[in-house]
């Protein structure tokens, strides 16, 4: 718990014919990290072909998934469901999870989908064409002529189009010199003009028209008056739209039915692919293969037993101690229960080195406590408690659930410290019900609270200092011990003795105090000459930084107080009470959110910057096991791949 999991090296030698079974079992167990390092001999001739085969299946599932996902009907989240109902369990057809069943299933689904999408594309094209025609026909509404008559004949021509209204009069005047039959309908900005004339005049008429900004409308080859045609096309469009909706509904139902199966299949083939690809890391002889890797010590015996079981005893497994380069071993954080939730915070900063302390347990102790001090309000603690339970219940992602667990632990400290300092929505109980309780009021005794915050900081820093000293001693790093830690010890001894002198006035204490201070300055001077002295204010700065525990606690209480005062001023009339309640509600929610976020960030920061700088190096390589990912599928399915 205080150190990363102990690791061992594992070497395995087995006959080729057990390779599939061993790889599959190791993949299911997920207990070892396989080292890279095969040469060309590691690649079987058939390997590439098998890889291509699995990859093709995976891609087919992915392509179908991409095609169907746009049609998936996603229900709008309802607050009631979100809070009170657990998400529905994932359901799929487990019989599909093998090559023989997947092949026809994917082909049939592909055919269905292609057919539906082709029909949809044809319909959409038809809808587009019909809409465009209807739009053109509607332009001629009001003209009681058959549109099929507006066509060129042997001797005559016809032309229709829009003219800007401001040009209409002049255009008509100029066109009067031709033998034309003109029909027009005036609009606000444009006029629609239909001209029928003699063919030998067409070129000149068109030239005149274009000078006046005439925009020609191509009349579709249809028969009937515009009003008759509009009715006909509207009916056609409605029918097309109905068909369109029908196909979309079919696609939605197909998506609803098949997406879960496709998700499961994709995951299934991803895992298969991983199993095939890992085999190129193996070294080979004519009939055997070997693999090397790292395994957590506590899982080694079980893994060896499982390998022997699936290989009928025809595998040689060696579990070896780490050699001198063991410090390069991958690091697996190994914490039980709720402590595990804090591993993410440790990783966010840096993975510890293999031989270094894992600070997760220390964060498990310190983080919620600091959070509780900074929020310090029983009511906000209760709100946080319910929020964290909701996060833990509602979300499936392990990372988010871990945040929920961290907030849950933090809420317990917040409630406890809120009750200790008598804070429930700030001074709500005092303002509105004249109820007082708590050890002391943080707002009026800020000096005591500041002293407490600095003492908490000093204890926290000294815990880090002790861990740092322990690590340096274990590494036999005398130089590091003196220049990084011993001067702090001297400084603290000196400061402590000066404090004792301040209260007792015992002068003999001054000598050791001065000597300790001298030793401290000597070390720092040797470390970085005069610039080394800067470390002293820097250490006091780190200690003073814990004053933020008080600062954030005060900010929470202060804002809550302001909200209560403003709301209290309004409680005189019914309307005032209404707004008062609104302000209480909104103000306290705002205060809760802003300060909970602040408490989280600052708790993190106190650990990362002040605490970790005392002992933590980090920089380890995370253990990355050969492990299948199973979000949608369960163990089982095809064993003969």
């Amino acid at each position, binding site marked *: 718990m205080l150190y990363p999991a102990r690791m061992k090296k594992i070497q395995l030698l087995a006959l080729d014919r057990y390779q599939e079974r061993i790889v599959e079992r190791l993949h299911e167990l997920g207990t070892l990290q396989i080292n890279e390092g095969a040469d060309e001999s590691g690649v079987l001739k058939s390997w590439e072909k098998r890889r291509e085969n699995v990859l093709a299946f995976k891609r087919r599932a992915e392509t179908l998934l991409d095609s169907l996902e746009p049609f998936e009907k996603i229900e709008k989240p309802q607050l009631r469901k979100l809070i009170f109902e657990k998400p529905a369990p994932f359901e799929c057809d487990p019989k599909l999870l093998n090559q023989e069943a997947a092949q026809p299933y994917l082909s049939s689904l592909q055919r269905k989908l292609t057919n539906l999408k082709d029909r949809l594309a044809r319909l959409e094209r038809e809808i587009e064409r019909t809409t465009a025609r209807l739009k053109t026909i509607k332009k001629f509404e009001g003209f009681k002529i058959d549109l099929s008559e507006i066509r060129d004949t042997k001797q005559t021509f016809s032309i229709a189009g829009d003219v800007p209204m401001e040009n209409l009069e002049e255009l008509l005047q100029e066109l009067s010199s031709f033998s034309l039959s003109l029909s027009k309908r005036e609009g606000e900005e444009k006029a629609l003009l239909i001209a029928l004339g003699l063919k030998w005049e067409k070129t000149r008429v068109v030239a005149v028209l274009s000078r006046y900004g005439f925009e020609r409308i191509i009349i579709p080859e249809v028969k009937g008056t515009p009003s008759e045609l509009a009715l006909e096309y509207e009916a056609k469009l409605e029918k097309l739209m109905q068909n369109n909706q029908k196909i979309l509904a079919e696609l939605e139902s197909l998506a609803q039915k098949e997406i879960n199966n496709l998700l499961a299949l994709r995951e299934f083939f991803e895992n298969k692919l991983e199993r095939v690809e890992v085999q190129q890391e193996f070294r080979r002889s004519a009939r055997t293969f070997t693999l090397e890797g790292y395994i957590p010590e506590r899982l080694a015996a079980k893994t060896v037993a499982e390998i022997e079981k699936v290989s009928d005893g025809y595998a040689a497994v060696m579990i070896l101690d780490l050699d001198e380069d063991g410090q390069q071993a991958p690091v697996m954080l190994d914490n039980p229960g709720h402590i595990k939730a804090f591993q993410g*915070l440790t990783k966010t900063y840096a993975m510890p080195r293999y031989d270094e302390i894992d600070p997760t347990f220390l964060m498990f102790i310190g983080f919620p406590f600091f959070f509780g001090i900074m929020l310090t309000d029983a009511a906000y603690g209760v709100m946080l408690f319910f929020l964290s339970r909701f996060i833990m219940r509602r979300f499936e992602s392990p990372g988010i659930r871990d945040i929920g667990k961290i907030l849950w632990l933090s809420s317990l400290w917040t409630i406890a410290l809120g009750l200790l300092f008598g804070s429930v929505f700030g001074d709500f109980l005092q303002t509105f019900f004249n109820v007082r309780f708590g050890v002391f009021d943080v707002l009026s005794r800020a000096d005591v609270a*500041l002293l407490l915050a600095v003492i908490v900081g000093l204890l926290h820093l000294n815990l880090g200092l002790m861990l740092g000293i322990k690590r340096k001693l274990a590494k036999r790093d005398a130089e590091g011990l003196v220049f990084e830690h011993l001067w702090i010890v001297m400084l603290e001894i000196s400061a402590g003795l000066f404090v004792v002198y301040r209260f007792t006035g015992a002068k003999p204490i001054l000598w050791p105090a001065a000597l300790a201070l001298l030793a401290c300055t000597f070390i720092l001077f040797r470390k970085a000459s005069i610039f080394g002295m800067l470390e002293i204010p820097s250490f006091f700065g780190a200690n003073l*930084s814990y*004053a*933020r525990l008080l600062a954030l606690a005060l900010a929470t209480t202060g804002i809550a107080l302001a909200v209560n005062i403003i709301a209290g001023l309004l409680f005189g009339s019914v309307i005032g009470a209404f707004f008062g309640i609104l302000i209480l509600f909104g103000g306290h929610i705002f205060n809760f959110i802003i300060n909970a976020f602040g408490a989280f960030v600052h708790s*993190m920061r106190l650990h990362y*910057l002040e605490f970790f700088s005392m002992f933590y190096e980090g920089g380890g390589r995370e253990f990355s096991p050969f492990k299948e990912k199973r979000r949608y599928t369960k163990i089982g399915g095809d064993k003969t791949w």
Partner: protein
Amino acid sequence: MVVDINIGLKALGAGIAIGFAALGSGIGQGQAASAGVGAIAEKEELFGKAITLAALVETQAIYGFVIAILIMVLLK
């Protein structure tokens, strides 16, 4: 109502201490946070470090706050 000038001067001093410290800290935090947002856009896993760096600058405001408390409490 007669108010002791000492109380007024103490309040003024505390206000200046926290006010200027918070102003400087705020400007710095703005710069650190905007750089952090840029970094996260490029590399999402830097979120933890970016938020820590943004919070780092707040220390100066904390010093101002401590000075303000000390002025109000210790200067009788």
